[in-house]
């Protein structure tokens, strides 16, 4: 299914040659120093599963698969997952072959594969929904329209958070901009900045930013510790949107298809387990359980499960909950091509820092065909039909859907 393009070609014809993986990593002179080296994304040579993850709930599928021995069930050897604290070192570790199984915000592989020629393939979605826009509890912001002239932090330019935020801002008639702090903003402008997730709650409390949009559990922490209020859940803006995807080196899908199939089987089983046992999984991952995530169980439980709250309903933070039936975070692995296309289209309209010219040449249909390896996950899903029970799947027509936006 992903053999549409011969070697050396991509959705927009021949790929740019010899662009180094690093030239987008560091904005500094070091990248220039190294540019021109061969693009690397070599898979580790042995067949041990090496997982890299960030301490966020987006990593749940990989962590549960490890914790419950699902990789071993498939006959795979697996190393304890490696905790990394930023997307940049995560991608560097992936490119250097330190990991062969990672979770990445869905726009990151788009950028890696088509801007930097890093041979990465998406194997499955890691989860659906699971993020939110948090604003100051006392501030007067009650809708997106109130965000004009405000400062909002995003975790990464190439993130679902940035895409969904800007989608909602545009539909509220606002203009996302990237300006130096302190520059005057027009009433219809919203200034965006990158901030590390752990810095977001204190920055909000101190009034340095007016809001932030990020993965859990930093929204739960913002609610619990920074006096923050959820303005809107992203899963309430875009029904069952993808967020983090599970990815590997392309080489693994071509040279080691059996290995890849086993990995995907384990991930699919983990997502089915997570979808059914959210509370147990929260405990398991937390500092009170197996300590994959440093946060206590109460925080992770809120981040994974706390959605049915009258305060959210009253403020409209999850106004579509009854109609859509989704949770704060849901787990289903099927990578709907319609969502990939929508992301690529939305990325074309999204303001980001740095060179984004590659986006102009992307064809959403070709990306949806080329970026994702569908066969493995399809086989795994046929083997484990329980995945259809997740609220973010329509069991009547599980492999196809229309993207629903309600900004």
């Amino acid at each position, binding site marked *: 299914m992903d053999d549409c393009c011969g070697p050396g070609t991509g959705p927009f014809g021949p790929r740019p040659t010899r662009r180094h993986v*690093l030239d987008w990593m*560091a904005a500094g002179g070091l*990248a220039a120093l190294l540019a021109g080296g061969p693009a690397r994304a070599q898979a580790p040579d042995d067949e041990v599963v090496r997982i*890299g993850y960030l301490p966020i709930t987006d990593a749940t599928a990989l962590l549960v698969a490890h914790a419950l021995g699902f990789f071993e069930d498939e006959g795979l050897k697996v190393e304890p997952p*490696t*905790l*990394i*604290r930023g997307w940049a070192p995560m991608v560097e570790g992936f490119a250097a072959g330190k990991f062969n199984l990672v979770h990445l915000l869905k726009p990151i592989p788009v950028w890696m594969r088509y801007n930097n020629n890093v041979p990465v393939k998406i194997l499955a979605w890691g989860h659906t929904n699971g993020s939110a826009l948090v604003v100051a509890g006392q501030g007067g912001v009650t809708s997106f329209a109130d965000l004009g002239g405000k400062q909002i932090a995003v975790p990464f330019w190439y993130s679902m958070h940035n895409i969904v935020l800007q989608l909602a801002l545009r539909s509220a008639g606002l203009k996302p901009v990237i300006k130096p702090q302190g520059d005057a903003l027009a009433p219809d402008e919203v200034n965006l900045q990158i901030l590390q997730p*752990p810095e977001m709650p204190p920055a909000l409390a*101190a009034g340095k930013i007016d809001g932030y949009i990020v993965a859990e559990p930093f929204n739960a922490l913002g609610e619990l510790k920074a006096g923050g209020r959820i303005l809107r859940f992203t899963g309430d803006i875009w029904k069952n949107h993808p967020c983090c995807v599970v990815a590997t080196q392309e080489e693994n899908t071509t040279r080691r298809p059996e290995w890849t199939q086993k990995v995907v089987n384990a991930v699919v089983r983990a997502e089915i387990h997570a979808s059914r046992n959210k509370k147990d999984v929260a405990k398991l991952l937390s500092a009170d359980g197996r300590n994959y995530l440093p946060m206590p169980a109460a925080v992770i439980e809120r981040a994974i499960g706390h959605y049915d709250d009258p305060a959210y309903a009253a403020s409209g933070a999850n106004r579509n909950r009854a109609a859509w039936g989704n949770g704060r975070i849901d787990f289903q692995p099927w990578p709907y091509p319609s969502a990939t296309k929508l992301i690529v289209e939305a990325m074309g309209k999204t303001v980001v820092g740095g060179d984004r010219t590659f986006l102009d040449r992307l064809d959403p249909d070709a990306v949806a065909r080329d970026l994702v390896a569908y066969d493995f996950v399809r086989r795994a899903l046929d083997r484990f039909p329980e995945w259809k029970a997740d609220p973010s799947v329509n069991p009547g027509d599980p492999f196809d859907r229309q993207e629903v936006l309600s900004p």
Partner: protein
Amino acid sequence: MSAASFIRQAACAAAGLALLLAAWWLGAALVAGNPRTAAFADFAPGPALAALAGMLRRGELWGMAVPSLRRVGGGLAIAVALGVPLGILLGRSPAASAVTHLPFQLLRMISPLSWMPVAVLAFPTWDGAIVFLIAAAAVWPVTFATAAGLRKVDPHWFKVARNLGAGARHLLTTVVLPAVAADILTGIRLALGVAWVVLVPAEFLGVTSGLGYAINDARDTLQYDRLAATVLAIGAIGFALDGLCVALIRRTAWLRTT
């Protein structure tokens, strides 16, 4: 040291610490006084010291300090192994000094953290990458201190040594190294400070132990009492190591400044 001067020194140290404590307390009080930021005031002296006591009691601190000390030690060892010979070369050879001046000044100014992508790509293990980052920061103070120390040495010493029949090895062990030992240690003392600075961000990389890792964990969970407690621990360990350097410098110094 006379009793009077010892008492005066101790009083000065206590006054300095008291000032620091007051500033710390005041900063925390300001954060606590603002209702919006009150939840982040855990870094105040009270909660921080309580957290530190807890970490000491549970033996956690030791487990955090050992891996970090090993990484700092490894980085410093590499920095000394490279920096001392390099410094001696620069100090003895004006040509080498002239050739390397520009590139070294350029490299020296690079924040070691911008080497992170290279470190990750070049080293098979995460620990290796971290040790490299520390070494990349620590090698410059050692190199330049050694070179500067050697340039101060009276050239007649070398002439005398050669006239007495000293070979290259003798020259190194009986003239050069004793002459610059104190300078090397001064360089190591500076390098040690830099190494601790680099440690915290370097332990962002895929390791699950160490003081920097603990700081990152505390940040990720917004547990600022643990954050401040770890900062205190780093400060205390750094102070102890610095004291060790100072003692060694005193022993090896041949230019008494009293």
